[in-house]
Protein backbone atom coordinates (compact mmCIF):
# COMPACT_ATOMS: atom_id res chain seq x y z
CA UNK A 1 0.00 0.00 0.00
CA UNK A 2 2.60 2.48 1.09
CA UNK A 3 4.86 1.70 -1.84
CA UNK A 4 2.27 2.88 -4.30
CA UNK A 5 2.10 6.40 -3.03
CA UNK A 6 4.73 9.04 -3.11
CA UNK A 7 5.12 10.95 0.13
CA UNK A 8 5.47 10.15 3.80
CA UNK A 9 6.76 6.62 3.57
CA UNK A 10 8.12 6.77 7.08
CA UNK A 11 4.78 7.81 8.48
CA UNK A 12 2.94 5.16 6.52
CA UNK A 13 5.46 2.50 7.46
CA UNK A 14 5.23 3.40 11.12
CA UNK A 15 1.46 3.28 11.10
CA UNK A 16 1.40 -0.04 9.29
CA UNK A 17 3.72 -1.45 11.92
CA UNK A 18 1.59 -0.13 14.75
CA UNK A 19 -1.56 -1.32 13.06
CA UNK A 20 -0.10 -4.81 13.02
CA UNK A 21 0.79 -4.44 16.68
CA UNK A 22 -2.79 -3.58 17.62
CA UNK A 23 -4.39 -6.42 15.73
CA UNK A 24 -5.31 -4.83 12.42
CA UNK A 25 -3.45 -6.57 9.64
CA UNK A 26 -1.20 -4.39 7.53
CA UNK A 27 -2.04 -6.22 4.30
CA UNK A 28 -5.66 -5.18 4.78
CA UNK A 29 -4.82 -1.47 4.82
CA UNK A 30 -6.69 0.03 1.89
CA UNK A 31 -4.99 0.38 -1.47
CA UNK A 32 -6.22 3.02 -3.88
CA UNK A 33 -8.05 1.96 -7.03
CA UNK A 34 -6.28 2.81 -10.26
CA UNK A 35 -8.72 5.69 -11.00
CA UNK A 36 -8.24 7.20 -7.54
CA UNK A 37 -4.44 7.33 -7.46
CA UNK A 38 -3.03 10.63 -6.25
CA UNK A 39 0.13 11.70 -4.43
CA UNK A 40 -0.22 11.30 -0.67
CA UNK A 41 0.60 15.00 -0.24
CA UNK A 42 -2.48 15.87 -2.29
CA UNK A 43 -4.71 13.49 -0.40
CA UNK A 44 -4.27 14.70 3.15
CA UNK A 45 -2.33 16.93 5.50
CA UNK A 46 -1.46 14.50 8.27
CA UNK A 47 -2.19 14.80 11.96
CA UNK A 48 -2.54 12.17 14.66
CA UNK A 49 -5.80 10.53 15.70
CA UNK A 50 -4.90 9.44 19.26
CA UNK A 51 -8.44 9.11 20.59
CA UNK A 52 -9.67 7.07 17.65
CA UNK A 53 -6.58 4.87 17.93
CA UNK A 54 -7.27 4.35 21.63
CA UNK A 55 -10.89 3.48 20.90
CA UNK A 56 -9.81 0.90 18.30
CA UNK A 57 -7.38 -0.64 20.76
CA UNK A 58 -9.93 -0.73 23.57
CA UNK A 59 -13.12 -1.78 21.81
CA UNK A 60 -14.42 -4.17 19.22
CA UNK A 61 -16.94 -1.65 17.97
CA UNK A 62 -16.26 1.94 16.95
CA UNK A 63 -18.66 4.66 15.92
CA UNK A 64 -17.92 7.25 13.26
CA UNK A 65 -20.05 10.34 12.68
CA UNK A 66 -19.94 11.56 9.07
CA UNK A 67 -21.49 15.02 9.10
CA UNK A 68 -21.56 17.79 6.52
CA UNK A 69 -23.50 18.81 3.45
CA UNK A 70 -24.33 17.39 0.00
CA UNK A 71 -21.02 15.54 -0.42
CA UNK A 72 -21.79 13.63 2.76
CA UNK A 73 -25.46 13.04 1.95
CA UNK A 74 -24.43 11.82 -1.51
CA UNK A 75 -26.01 14.22 -4.01
CA UNK A 76 -25.02 12.90 -7.44
CA UNK A 77 -24.64 9.29 -6.28
CA UNK A 78 -26.85 6.67 -7.92
CA UNK A 79 -28.12 5.46 -4.54
CA UNK A 80 -27.57 5.98 -0.82
CA UNK A 81 -25.27 2.98 -0.73
CA UNK A 82 -22.86 4.83 -3.00
CA UNK A 83 -22.47 7.90 -0.77
CA UNK A 84 -18.95 8.35 0.58
CA UNK A 85 -19.81 7.30 4.18
CA UNK A 86 -21.41 4.08 2.91
CA UNK A 87 -18.40 3.25 0.72
CA UNK A 88 -16.00 4.26 3.49
CA UNK A 89 -17.78 1.87 5.82
CA UNK A 90 -17.03 -1.05 3.52
CA UNK A 91 -13.39 -0.05 3.14
CA UNK A 92 -12.76 0.50 6.86
CA UNK A 93 -14.61 -2.67 7.77
CA UNK A 94 -12.15 -4.61 5.61
CA UNK A 95 -9.08 -2.63 6.63
CA UNK A 96 -9.75 -2.82 10.34
CA UNK A 97 -10.34 -6.53 10.41
CA UNK A 98 -11.95 -7.70 13.61
CA UNK A 99 -13.48 -4.30 14.34
CA UNK A 100 -17.13 -3.47 13.95
CA UNK A 101 -17.23 -0.04 12.31
CA UNK A 102 -20.48 1.88 12.52
CA UNK A 103 -20.74 5.01 10.34
CA UNK A 104 -23.68 7.35 10.75
CA UNK A 105 -24.45 9.66 7.83
CA UNK A 106 -25.70 13.09 8.90
CA UNK A 107 -25.24 15.02 5.67
CA UNK A 108 -27.71 17.81 4.94
CA UNK A 109 -27.29 19.23 1.47
CA UNK A 110 -26.56 22.91 1.04
CA UNK A 111 -25.84 23.52 4.72
CA UNK A 112 -23.28 26.06 6.00
CA UNK A 113 -20.79 25.16 8.74
CA UNK A 114 -22.47 27.16 11.50
CA UNK A 115 -25.68 25.11 11.19
CA UNK A 116 -23.76 21.86 10.88
CA UNK A 117 -21.78 22.80 14.01
CA UNK A 118 -25.06 23.07 15.94
CA UNK A 119 -26.19 19.63 14.73
CA UNK A 120 -22.73 18.20 15.33
CA UNK A 121 -22.91 19.06 19.04
CA UNK A 122 -26.30 17.38 19.44
CA UNK A 123 -25.16 14.27 17.59
CA UNK A 124 -21.94 14.03 19.60
CA UNK A 125 -23.80 14.43 22.89
CA UNK A 126 -26.28 11.68 22.05
CA UNK A 127 -24.30 9.19 19.98
CA UNK A 128 -20.82 9.65 21.51
CA UNK A 129 -18.86 8.84 18.32
CA UNK A 130 -15.17 7.86 18.42
CA UNK A 131 -14.35 9.84 15.30
CA UNK A 132 -16.01 12.78 13.54
CA UNK A 133 -15.61 13.31 9.80
CA UNK A 134 -16.69 16.88 9.12
CA UNK A 135 -17.05 17.79 5.45
CA UNK A 136 -17.39 21.55 5.09
CA UNK A 137 -16.53 24.79 3.37
CA UNK A 138 -18.21 24.63 -0.03
CA UNK A 139 -21.50 26.15 1.02
CA UNK A 140 -19.83 28.78 3.18
CA UNK A 141 -17.74 29.81 0.18
CA UNK A 142 -20.79 30.00 -2.08
CA UNK A 143 -22.92 31.76 0.55
CA UNK A 144 -20.11 34.31 0.85
CA UNK A 145 -19.63 33.73 4.56
CA UNK A 146 -16.66 35.91 5.59
CA UNK A 147 -13.59 33.69 6.15
CA UNK A 148 -13.03 35.10 9.67
CA UNK A 149 -16.55 34.14 10.69
CA UNK A 150 -16.13 30.69 9.14
CA UNK A 151 -12.84 30.32 10.98
CA UNK A 152 -14.41 31.19 14.32
CA UNK A 153 -17.16 28.61 13.80
CA UNK A 154 -14.73 25.85 12.84
CA UNK A 155 -12.14 26.64 15.50
CA UNK A 156 -14.65 26.80 18.35
CA UNK A 157 -16.15 23.47 17.25
CA UNK A 158 -12.73 21.82 16.95
CA UNK A 159 -11.81 23.16 20.40
CA UNK A 160 -15.04 21.76 21.78
CA UNK A 161 -14.38 18.34 20.20
CA UNK A 162 -10.80 18.32 21.50
CA UNK A 163 -12.01 19.11 25.01
CA UNK A 164 -14.44 16.24 24.55
CA UNK A 165 -11.54 13.94 23.54
CA UNK A 166 -12.97 13.16 20.12
CA UNK A 167 -10.76 13.24 17.03
CA UNK A 168 -12.05 15.17 14.06
CA UNK A 169 -11.09 14.92 10.42
CA UNK A 170 -11.82 17.98 8.30
CA UNK A 171 -12.88 17.04 4.78
CA UNK A 172 -12.30 20.00 2.48
CA UNK A 173 -13.98 21.54 -0.53
CA UNK A 174 -14.32 19.72 -3.83
CA UNK A 175 -12.46 20.70 -6.97
CA UNK A 176 -14.47 22.10 -9.79
CA UNK A 177 -12.97 24.13 -12.64
CA UNK A 178 -15.80 26.61 -12.27
CA UNK A 179 -14.71 27.74 -8.80
CA UNK A 180 -10.99 27.10 -8.99
CA UNK A 181 -10.43 30.84 -9.44
CA UNK A 182 -13.35 32.08 -7.31
CA UNK A 183 -11.94 34.34 -4.60
CA UNK A 184 -14.24 33.28 -1.77
CA UNK A 185 -13.74 29.65 -2.67
CA UNK A 186 -9.96 30.03 -2.48
CA UNK A 187 -10.14 32.02 0.75
CA UNK A 188 -12.31 29.47 2.52
CA UNK A 189 -10.01 26.69 1.30
CA UNK A 190 -6.94 28.53 2.57
CA UNK A 191 -8.67 29.20 5.89
CA UNK A 192 -9.53 25.54 6.31
CA UNK A 193 -5.95 24.50 5.60
CA UNK A 194 -4.64 27.06 8.06
CA UNK A 195 -7.04 25.94 10.79
CA UNK A 196 -6.15 22.28 10.24
CA UNK A 197 -2.42 22.89 10.45
CA UNK A 198 -2.61 25.23 13.44
CA UNK A 199 -5.02 22.99 15.32
CA UNK A 200 -3.08 19.87 14.28
CA UNK A 201 -6.17 18.24 12.83
CA UNK A 202 -6.20 15.74 9.97
CA UNK A 203 -7.32 17.52 6.81
CA UNK A 204 -8.46 15.78 3.64
CA UNK A 205 -7.32 17.89 0.71
CA UNK A 206 -10.17 16.98 -1.56
CA UNK A 207 -9.60 19.89 -3.90
CA UNK A 208 -5.98 18.93 -4.54
CA UNK A 209 -6.60 15.22 -4.97
CA UNK A 210 -9.53 15.81 -7.29
CA UNK A 211 -7.61 18.37 -9.29
CA UNK A 212 -4.72 15.95 -9.65
CA UNK A 213 -6.98 13.18 -10.88
CA UNK A 214 -8.92 15.49 -13.20
CA UNK A 215 -5.70 16.78 -14.78
CA UNK A 216 -3.89 13.42 -14.89
CA UNK A 217 -6.79 11.42 -16.26
CA UNK A 218 -9.52 13.02 -18.32
CA UNK A 219 -11.65 9.87 -18.24
CA UNK A 220 -13.50 8.34 -16.59
CA UNK A 221 -15.08 11.38 -15.03
CA UNK A 222 -15.71 11.60 -11.30
CA UNK A 223 -18.34 14.29 -11.63
CA UNK A 224 -22.11 13.95 -11.91
CA UNK A 225 -24.08 15.72 -14.62
CA UNK A 226 -24.17 19.08 -12.80
CA UNK A 227 -20.37 19.20 -13.01
CA UNK A 228 -20.19 20.07 -9.32
CA UNK A 229 -21.23 17.05 -7.29
CA UNK A 230 -19.47 13.71 -7.47
CA UNK A 231 -20.78 10.53 -9.07
CA UNK A 232 -20.37 6.99 -7.72
CA UNK A 233 -16.74 6.82 -8.79
CA UNK A 234 -16.03 10.26 -7.35
CA UNK A 235 -17.48 9.19 -4.00
CA UNK A 236 -15.48 5.96 -4.25
CA UNK A 237 -12.25 7.96 -4.56
CA UNK A 238 -13.33 10.30 -1.76
CA UNK A 239 -13.96 7.30 0.51
CA UNK A 240 -10.63 5.69 -0.46
CA UNK A 241 -8.71 8.88 0.20
CA UNK A 242 -10.31 9.36 3.60
CA UNK A 243 -9.80 5.70 4.51
CA UNK A 244 -6.15 5.85 3.57
CA UNK A 245 -5.54 9.09 5.43
CA UNK A 246 -7.31 7.83 8.55
CA UNK A 247 -5.45 4.53 8.61
CA UNK A 248 -2.10 6.16 7.82
CA UNK A 249 -2.55 8.71 10.59
CA UNK A 250 -3.95 6.39 13.23
CA UNK A 251 -0.70 5.99 15.07
CA UNK A 252 1.23 9.07 14.08
CA UNK A 253 2.92 10.79 16.98
CA UNK A 254 2.18 14.34 18.01
CA UNK A 255 4.91 15.66 15.77
CA UNK A 256 3.60 16.91 12.52
CA UNK A 257 5.74 15.82 9.56
CA UNK A 258 6.30 18.55 6.98
CA UNK A 259 4.31 17.16 4.10
CA UNK A 260 2.58 19.04 1.33
CA UNK A 261 3.11 22.61 0.35
CA UNK A 262 0.42 25.10 1.19
CA UNK A 263 -3.29 24.67 0.57
Amino acid at each position, binding site marked *: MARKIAGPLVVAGLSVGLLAATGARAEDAPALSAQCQAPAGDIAAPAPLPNFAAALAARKKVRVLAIGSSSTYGIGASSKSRSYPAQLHDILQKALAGEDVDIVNRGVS*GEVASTTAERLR*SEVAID*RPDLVLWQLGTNDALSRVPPDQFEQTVRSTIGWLKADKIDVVLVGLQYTPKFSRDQNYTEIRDTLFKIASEENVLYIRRFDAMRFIAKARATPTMMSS*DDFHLNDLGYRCMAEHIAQAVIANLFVRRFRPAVGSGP
Partner: protein
Amino acid sequence: MRRPNEVDFWRGFALVTIFINHVPGLFYERFTSRNVSISDSAELFVFLAGWSLRYVVGPDSAKVPATSLVFRLLGRAAQIYTAQILITMIALAVIAGAAIWLEQPFLLDWHNAGPVFQDAAETHVGLVLLSHQLGYFNILPLYVVLMAVAPAFAILDRISPWLLFGLSGILWATTLALGFNLPTWPVEGRWFFDPFAWQFIFVLGFLMARTDAGPGALARRWRAVLRIAAAPVVVAGAIAAWLVWSPTPASVPSPKLFFMFDKTYLSPARLIQFLSVAAVFGGLWARLPDWFAPVNAYLSMLGRHSLNVFCVASVLSLAAQIGRYVYGGGIAADTVVLWIGLAVMGYSAWISEWRERSPARSSSRA
Protein backbone atom coordinates in the same frame (compact mmCIF):
# COMPACT_ATOMS: atom_id res chain seq x y z
CA MET B 1 -56.13 46.41 14.69
CA ARG B 2 -54.43 46.10 18.07
CA ARG B 3 -52.45 49.00 19.44
CA PRO B 4 -48.71 48.40 19.73
CA ASN B 5 -48.03 46.18 22.72
CA GLU B 6 -45.09 44.44 24.30
CA VAL B 7 -45.78 40.95 22.91
CA ASP B 8 -46.19 42.16 19.32
CA PHE B 9 -43.13 44.35 19.70
CA TRP B 10 -40.88 41.45 20.75
CA ARG B 11 -42.41 39.16 18.13
CA GLY B 12 -41.49 41.74 15.52
CA PHE B 13 -38.03 41.92 17.02
CA ALA B 14 -37.71 38.11 16.79
CA LEU B 15 -38.89 38.16 13.16
CA VAL B 16 -36.26 40.70 12.13
CA THR B 17 -33.57 38.77 14.01
CA ILE B 18 -34.59 35.48 12.42
CA PHE B 19 -34.45 37.08 8.96
CA ILE B 20 -30.92 38.34 9.60
CA ASN B 21 -29.72 35.05 11.11
CA HIS B 22 -31.09 33.11 8.14
CA VAL B 23 -28.79 34.83 5.67
CA PRO B 24 -25.46 33.18 6.56
CA GLY B 25 -22.52 35.54 6.46
CA LEU B 26 -24.69 38.68 6.48
CA PHE B 27 -22.68 41.50 8.04
CA TYR B 28 -25.46 42.42 10.46
CA GLU B 29 -25.54 38.92 11.93
CA ARG B 30 -22.83 40.01 14.38
CA PHE B 31 -25.22 42.49 15.97
CA THR B 32 -27.97 40.01 16.75
CA SER B 33 -28.73 38.79 20.24
CA ARG B 34 -27.13 35.38 19.84
CA ASN B 35 -23.69 36.96 19.98
CA VAL B 36 -24.35 38.01 23.59
CA SER B 37 -26.72 35.24 24.65
CA ILE B 38 -26.62 31.44 24.62
CA SER B 39 -30.30 31.37 23.66
CA ASP B 40 -31.51 33.11 20.51
CA SER B 41 -34.57 34.41 18.71
CA ALA B 42 -35.95 30.87 18.29
CA GLU B 43 -36.66 30.68 22.04
CA LEU B 44 -38.23 34.13 21.96
CA PHE B 45 -40.41 33.27 18.97
CA VAL B 46 -41.74 30.02 20.45
CA PHE B 47 -42.23 31.53 23.93
CA LEU B 48 -44.28 34.37 22.44
CA ALA B 49 -46.23 31.91 20.27
CA GLY B 50 -47.24 30.26 23.55
CA TRP B 51 -48.04 33.65 25.05
CA SER B 52 -50.32 34.44 22.07
CA LEU B 53 -52.11 31.14 22.58
CA ARG B 54 -53.49 32.75 25.74
CA TYR B 55 -55.29 35.37 23.64
CA VAL B 56 -56.94 32.65 21.58
CA VAL B 57 -57.94 30.63 24.63
CA GLY B 58 -59.20 33.72 26.46
CA PRO B 59 -59.34 34.43 30.18
CA ASP B 60 -60.63 31.85 32.62
CA SER B 61 -63.53 34.17 33.48
CA ALA B 62 -64.92 34.19 29.93
CA LYS B 63 -64.55 30.58 28.88
CA VAL B 64 -64.90 29.67 25.24
CA PRO B 65 -66.72 26.31 24.98
CA ALA B 66 -64.17 23.48 24.79
CA THR B 67 -65.34 22.14 21.42
CA SER B 68 -65.13 25.51 19.71
CA LEU B 69 -61.71 26.05 21.29
CA VAL B 70 -60.47 22.70 19.94
CA PHE B 71 -61.74 23.50 16.44
CA ARG B 72 -60.21 26.94 16.54
CA LEU B 73 -56.77 25.65 17.58
CA LEU B 74 -56.77 22.77 15.13
CA GLY B 75 -57.79 25.24 12.43
CA ARG B 76 -54.81 27.36 13.39
CA ALA B 77 -52.54 24.25 13.18
CA ALA B 78 -53.91 23.55 9.70
CA GLN B 79 -53.29 27.16 8.69
CA ILE B 80 -49.65 26.97 9.81
CA TYR B 81 -49.23 23.63 8.05
CA THR B 82 -50.59 25.17 4.84
CA ALA B 83 -48.16 28.06 5.23
CA GLN B 84 -45.24 25.67 5.66
CA ILE B 85 -46.14 23.70 2.52
CA LEU B 86 -46.70 26.91 0.55
CA ILE B 87 -43.39 28.56 1.46
CA THR B 88 -41.56 25.27 0.91
CA MET B 89 -42.95 25.06 -2.62
CA ILE B 90 -42.07 28.69 -3.31
CA ALA B 91 -38.56 28.17 -1.92
CA LEU B 92 -38.09 25.11 -4.15
CA ALA B 93 -39.19 27.18 -7.14
CA VAL B 94 -36.79 29.98 -6.17
CA ILE B 95 -33.93 27.49 -5.91
CA ALA B 96 -34.86 25.71 -9.15
CA GLY B 97 -35.47 29.02 -10.91
CA ALA B 98 -32.06 30.30 -9.87
CA ALA B 99 -30.43 27.06 -11.05
CA ILE B 100 -32.12 27.36 -14.45
CA TRP B 101 -31.70 31.10 -14.89
CA LEU B 102 -28.06 31.16 -13.81
CA GLU B 103 -27.42 27.85 -15.61
CA GLN B 104 -25.87 26.49 -12.45
CA PRO B 105 -27.59 23.19 -11.69
CA PHE B 106 -25.56 22.65 -8.50
CA LEU B 107 -27.70 25.33 -6.82
CA LEU B 108 -30.40 22.66 -6.61
CA ASP B 109 -28.71 21.23 -3.52
CA TRP B 110 -29.06 24.38 -1.43
CA HIS B 111 -31.13 24.51 1.72
CA ASN B 112 -31.52 20.73 1.88
CA ALA B 113 -33.42 20.91 -1.43
CA GLY B 114 -31.01 18.42 -3.06
CA PRO B 115 -32.99 15.30 -2.11
CA VAL B 116 -36.22 16.87 -3.45
CA PHE B 117 -34.72 16.81 -6.93
CA GLN B 118 -32.52 13.73 -6.60
CA ASP B 119 -34.86 11.41 -4.66
CA ALA B 120 -38.11 13.05 -5.72
CA ALA B 121 -40.52 10.22 -4.87
CA GLU B 122 -39.45 9.68 -1.28
CA THR B 123 -38.76 13.31 -0.50
CA HIS B 124 -42.17 14.52 -1.66
CA VAL B 125 -43.77 12.18 0.83
CA GLY B 126 -41.36 13.57 3.42
CA LEU B 127 -42.28 17.17 2.59
CA VAL B 128 -45.96 16.51 3.18
CA LEU B 129 -45.25 14.55 6.39
CA LEU B 130 -42.93 17.40 7.52
CA SER B 131 -40.16 14.82 7.90
CA HIS B 132 -38.21 16.63 5.21
CA GLN B 133 -37.64 20.28 6.05
CA LEU B 134 -35.67 22.73 3.97
CA GLY B 135 -32.75 24.41 5.72
CA TYR B 136 -33.99 27.19 8.05
CA PHE B 137 -37.59 26.16 7.27
CA ASN B 138 -37.76 24.17 10.50
CA ILE B 139 -39.60 26.46 12.91
CA LEU B 140 -43.08 26.17 11.35
CA PRO B 141 -43.08 22.33 11.51
CA LEU B 142 -42.46 22.68 15.25
CA TYR B 143 -45.23 25.27 15.44
CA VAL B 144 -47.66 22.93 13.60
CA VAL B 145 -47.03 20.16 16.12
CA LEU B 146 -47.38 22.55 19.07
CA MET B 147 -50.63 23.99 17.76
CA ALA B 148 -52.00 20.52 17.03
CA VAL B 149 -51.56 19.58 20.70
CA ALA B 150 -52.52 23.05 21.96
CA PRO B 151 -56.10 21.90 22.75
CA ALA B 152 -54.63 19.52 25.31
CA PHE B 153 -52.55 22.36 26.80
CA ALA B 154 -55.61 24.60 26.98
CA ILE B 155 -57.76 21.95 28.67
CA LEU B 156 -55.06 20.99 31.17
CA ASP B 157 -54.63 24.68 31.96
CA ARG B 158 -58.34 24.94 32.71
CA ILE B 159 -58.08 22.06 35.17
CA SER B 160 -54.99 23.57 36.78
CA PRO B 161 -52.12 25.61 35.38
CA TRP B 162 -49.79 23.85 37.82
CA LEU B 163 -50.88 20.48 36.41
CA LEU B 164 -50.01 21.66 32.89
CA PHE B 165 -46.70 23.03 34.16
CA GLY B 166 -45.83 19.73 35.84
CA LEU B 167 -46.78 17.45 32.94
CA SER B 168 -45.08 19.64 30.35
CA GLY B 169 -41.95 19.85 32.49
CA ILE B 170 -41.87 16.07 33.01
CA LEU B 171 -42.16 15.50 29.25
CA TRP B 172 -39.31 17.97 28.62
CA ALA B 173 -37.09 16.38 31.29
CA THR B 174 -37.81 12.86 30.02
CA THR B 175 -36.94 13.96 26.49
CA LEU B 176 -33.62 15.36 27.67
CA ALA B 177 -32.86 12.22 29.67
CA LEU B 178 -33.63 9.82 26.82
CA GLY B 179 -32.73 12.07 23.87
CA PHE B 180 -35.76 11.10 21.81
CA ASN B 181 -36.84 13.21 18.89
CA LEU B 182 -38.85 12.93 15.67
CA PRO B 183 -36.80 11.43 12.82
CA THR B 184 -36.24 13.12 9.50
CA TRP B 185 -36.88 11.08 6.37
CA PRO B 186 -35.70 10.30 3.68
CA VAL B 187 -32.57 12.13 4.90
CA GLU B 188 -31.42 10.29 8.02
CA GLY B 189 -31.38 12.58 11.00
CA ARG B 190 -33.52 14.28 13.60
CA TRP B 191 -35.75 17.35 13.69
CA PHE B 192 -33.72 20.51 14.26
CA PHE B 193 -36.23 21.60 16.91
CA ASP B 194 -37.34 18.63 18.99
CA PRO B 195 -41.07 19.21 19.61
CA PHE B 196 -41.03 17.07 22.78
CA ALA B 197 -38.47 19.43 24.30
CA TRP B 198 -39.59 22.72 22.77
CA GLN B 199 -43.20 22.25 23.89
CA PHE B 200 -42.03 23.29 27.36
CA ILE B 201 -41.05 26.82 26.38
CA PHE B 202 -44.30 27.16 24.41
CA VAL B 203 -46.24 26.05 27.49
CA LEU B 204 -44.21 28.40 29.69
CA GLY B 205 -45.16 31.31 27.41
CA PHE B 206 -48.81 30.22 27.65
CA LEU B 207 -48.60 29.94 31.46
CA MET B 208 -46.73 33.21 31.97
CA ALA B 209 -49.43 35.04 30.03
CA ARG B 210 -51.97 33.97 32.65
CA THR B 211 -52.20 36.61 35.35
CA ASP B 212 -54.72 35.14 37.79
CA ALA B 213 -53.29 31.71 38.66
CA GLY B 214 -50.41 29.31 38.28
CA PRO B 215 -46.76 30.09 37.49
CA GLY B 216 -47.75 33.34 35.72
CA ALA B 217 -49.36 34.75 38.86
CA LEU B 218 -46.51 33.55 41.04
CA ALA B 219 -43.89 35.12 38.76
CA ARG B 220 -45.73 38.44 38.88
CA ARG B 221 -45.85 38.38 42.67
CA TRP B 222 -42.09 37.76 42.91
CA ARG B 223 -41.17 39.88 39.94
CA ALA B 224 -38.66 42.15 41.69
CA VAL B 225 -36.84 39.22 43.26
CA LEU B 226 -36.81 37.27 39.99
CA ARG B 227 -35.37 40.23 38.17
CA ILE B 228 -32.49 40.53 40.63
CA ALA B 229 -31.85 36.77 40.54
CA ALA B 230 -31.96 36.77 36.73
CA ALA B 231 -29.40 39.52 36.15
CA PRO B 232 -26.29 37.42 36.92
CA VAL B 233 -27.60 34.62 34.65
CA VAL B 234 -27.94 37.09 31.78
CA VAL B 235 -24.39 38.30 32.36
CA ALA B 236 -23.03 34.74 32.60
CA GLY B 237 -24.83 33.82 29.35
CA ALA B 238 -23.37 36.85 27.64
CA ILE B 239 -19.85 35.93 28.75
CA ALA B 240 -20.24 32.31 27.61
CA ALA B 241 -21.59 33.45 24.23
CA TRP B 242 -18.84 36.01 23.86
CA LEU B 243 -16.17 33.43 24.63
CA VAL B 244 -18.00 30.91 22.40
CA TRP B 245 -17.80 28.50 25.35
CA SER B 246 -20.11 25.58 25.96
CA PRO B 247 -19.71 22.45 28.10
CA THR B 248 -18.54 19.24 26.44
CA PRO B 249 -20.34 15.94 26.95
CA ALA B 250 -17.19 14.36 28.44
CA SER B 251 -17.04 17.00 31.18
CA VAL B 252 -20.58 16.52 32.46
CA PRO B 253 -22.43 13.60 34.06
CA SER B 254 -25.21 11.68 32.32
CA PRO B 255 -27.79 12.44 31.05
CA LYS B 256 -25.55 14.77 29.07
CA LEU B 257 -28.22 16.92 27.45
CA PHE B 258 -29.17 18.34 30.84
CA PHE B 259 -25.80 20.03 31.19
CA MET B 260 -25.11 21.17 27.65
CA PHE B 261 -26.17 24.27 25.72
CA ASP B 262 -28.05 22.21 23.18
CA LYS B 263 -30.44 23.97 20.83
CA THR B 264 -32.23 20.96 19.33
CA TYR B 265 -33.21 19.64 22.76
CA LEU B 266 -33.53 23.00 24.53
CA SER B 267 -31.06 22.27 27.32
CA PRO B 268 -31.88 23.80 30.74
CA ALA B 269 -29.04 26.33 30.45
CA ARG B 270 -30.58 27.81 27.31
CA LEU B 271 -34.07 27.78 28.81
CA ILE B 272 -33.03 29.35 32.12
CA GLN B 273 -30.92 31.93 30.38
CA PHE B 274 -33.81 32.83 28.07
CA LEU B 275 -36.24 33.13 30.98
CA SER B 276 -33.72 35.34 32.76
CA VAL B 277 -33.46 37.60 29.73
CA ALA B 278 -37.26 37.75 29.69
CA ALA B 279 -37.32 38.60 33.42
CA VAL B 280 -34.75 41.36 33.03
CA PHE B 281 -36.08 42.92 29.83
CA GLY B 282 -39.80 42.22 30.32
CA GLY B 283 -41.62 45.46 31.09
CA LEU B 284 -38.89 47.58 29.55
CA TRP B 285 -41.15 48.21 26.59
CA ALA B 286 -43.47 50.44 28.61
CA ARG B 287 -40.56 52.74 29.39
CA LEU B 288 -39.29 53.16 25.84
CA PRO B 289 -38.56 56.83 25.00
CA ASP B 290 -40.79 58.80 22.63
CA TRP B 291 -38.27 58.93 19.82
CA PHE B 292 -38.48 55.13 19.70
CA ALA B 293 -42.16 55.27 18.70
CA PRO B 294 -41.66 54.65 14.93
CA VAL B 295 -39.55 51.54 15.62
CA ASN B 296 -42.12 50.40 18.15
CA ALA B 297 -44.94 50.91 15.65
CA TYR B 298 -43.01 49.08 12.93
CA LEU B 299 -42.01 46.05 15.02
CA SER B 300 -45.48 45.80 16.59
CA MET B 301 -47.01 45.82 13.12
CA LEU B 302 -44.75 42.92 12.11
CA GLY B 303 -45.62 41.10 15.32
CA ARG B 304 -49.38 41.45 14.75
CA HIS B 305 -49.02 39.50 11.50
CA SER B 306 -46.18 37.26 12.50
CA LEU B 307 -47.16 34.21 10.43
CA ASN B 308 -47.47 36.17 7.19
CA VAL B 309 -44.32 38.14 7.88
CA PHE B 310 -42.42 35.01 8.86
CA CYS B 311 -43.39 33.30 5.60
CA VAL B 312 -42.36 36.27 3.48
CA ALA B 313 -39.12 36.70 5.43
CA SER B 314 -38.23 33.00 5.02
CA VAL B 315 -38.46 33.17 1.23
CA LEU B 316 -36.72 36.53 1.26
CA SER B 317 -33.75 35.24 3.27
CA LEU B 318 -33.34 32.47 0.69
CA ALA B 319 -33.48 35.02 -2.14
CA ALA B 320 -30.89 37.09 -0.27
CA GLN B 321 -28.57 34.09 -0.09
CA ILE B 322 -28.78 33.58 -3.82
CA GLY B 323 -28.26 37.31 -4.37
CA ARG B 324 -25.16 37.26 -2.19
CA TYR B 325 -23.85 34.25 -4.09
CA VAL B 326 -24.24 36.07 -7.41
CA TYR B 327 -23.20 39.58 -6.39
CA GLY B 328 -21.02 38.83 -3.36
CA GLY B 329 -21.39 40.01 0.25
CA GLY B 330 -19.83 42.97 2.00
CA ILE B 331 -21.14 45.81 4.11
CA ALA B 332 -22.68 47.78 1.21
CA ALA B 333 -24.46 44.80 -0.36
CA ASP B 334 -25.57 43.54 3.05
CA THR B 335 -26.99 46.95 3.96
CA VAL B 336 -29.08 46.78 0.79
CA VAL B 337 -30.21 43.25 1.72
CA LEU B 338 -31.15 44.42 5.22
CA TRP B 339 -33.18 47.42 4.06
CA ILE B 340 -34.96 45.46 1.32
CA GLY B 341 -35.75 42.84 3.94
CA LEU B 342 -37.11 45.36 6.44
CA ALA B 343 -39.14 47.10 3.73
CA VAL B 344 -40.67 43.92 2.33
CA MET B 345 -41.46 42.59 5.82
CA GLY B 346 -43.11 45.91 6.68
CA TYR B 347 -45.02 45.93 3.40
CA SER B 348 -46.34 42.40 3.90
CA ALA B 349 -47.50 43.31 7.43
CA TRP B 350 -49.15 46.48 6.11
CA ILE B 351 -50.91 44.53 3.32
CA SER B 352 -52.15 42.00 5.87
CA GLU B 353 -53.48 44.85 7.99
CA TRP B 354 -55.16 46.52 5.06
CA ARG B 355 -56.75 43.24 4.00
CA GLU B 356 -58.13 42.72 7.49
CA ARG B 357 -59.53 46.23 7.70
CA SER B 358 -61.37 45.98 4.37
CA PRO B 359 -65.07 45.45 5.16
CA ALA B 360 -65.49 42.34 3.03
CA ARG B 361 -62.98 40.44 5.12
CA SER B 362 -63.63 41.93 8.52
CA SER B 363 -65.09 38.69 9.87
CA SER B 364 -61.94 36.63 9.37
CA ARG B 365 -58.90 37.07 11.53
CA ALA B 366 -55.62 35.42 10.64
